[in-house]
């Protein structure tokens, strides 16, 4: 199956700008389904962005982050062609990881 993560990273004047979109329900645990049963919380807890084995950005998320979360961040020290690794883990222990090349 295709990766749950879509990433676009662009380097410009030494600053890399990264946009990531993750496919995930991000259920808050407060919403009921049509039958009135509470949908249990199911959300990404930690998302990391690493470059050369070092984390350049760590997002700690709670259930108040929107469904299919979007994240944008900027960092220095990477150049065009470098590889980034983006990984996440959710509260049920599921995880996914992908790599992206800086354009």
């Amino acid at each position, binding site marked *: 199956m295709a990766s749950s993560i879509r990433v676009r990273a662009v380097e410009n004047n030494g600053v890399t700008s990264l946009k990531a979109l993750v496919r995930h329900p991000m259920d808050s645990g407060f919403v009921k389904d049509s039958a009135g049963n509470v949908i249990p919380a199911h959300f990404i807890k930690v998302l990391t962005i690493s470059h050369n084995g070092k984390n350049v950005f760590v997002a700690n998320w709670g259930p108040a982050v929107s469904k299919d979360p979007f994240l*944008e961040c900027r960092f220095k020290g990477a150049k065009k062609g470098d590889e980034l690794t983006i990984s996440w883990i959710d509260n049920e222990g599921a995880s996914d990881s992908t790599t992206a090349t800086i354009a």
Partner: protein
Amino acid sequence: MIDQRRRGFLKGVLGAGVAGFALGSGIVPLRVEAATAPDASDWPQKAFRTPGVDETISELYGMEATESDQITMDLPTIAQNGAVVPVTVETALPNVTSIALLVAKNPNALAAYFDIPDGTLPFVSNRLKMAETTDVVAVVISDGKAYKATQNVKVTVGGCGG
């Protein structure tokens, strides 16, 4: 609506088929994902379960935040859909190590917080859910001190309804 569900179902079936084939053929090393998964053991359970902005800040960072005009927040003043409210935070404060986003009237105030290592700019954009018209608070840790900025969002459709 029906069409979308069918799409989802088809994708699910196809995906499962491909995954099943990969497993069956023994090509895919099963441990790869486990090895690269981030460590969620430091995830602050308690801070994410605390109602109230000030209580959450002190739970998460162990200090009180002072107001700062050096924090720029970019978010809509009126959000038509509380389920998806884009929030962008940027700051001119030096030596930023962490940025947190709090939604005052959500059942638990803390929505997200971000570690900003050396070399990463104090900038983040994220989308949040909010139940009703509320203050959104950005907290920035700069030089070991906590600063905050607040902006109100008027929500016309809540993000936590069924």
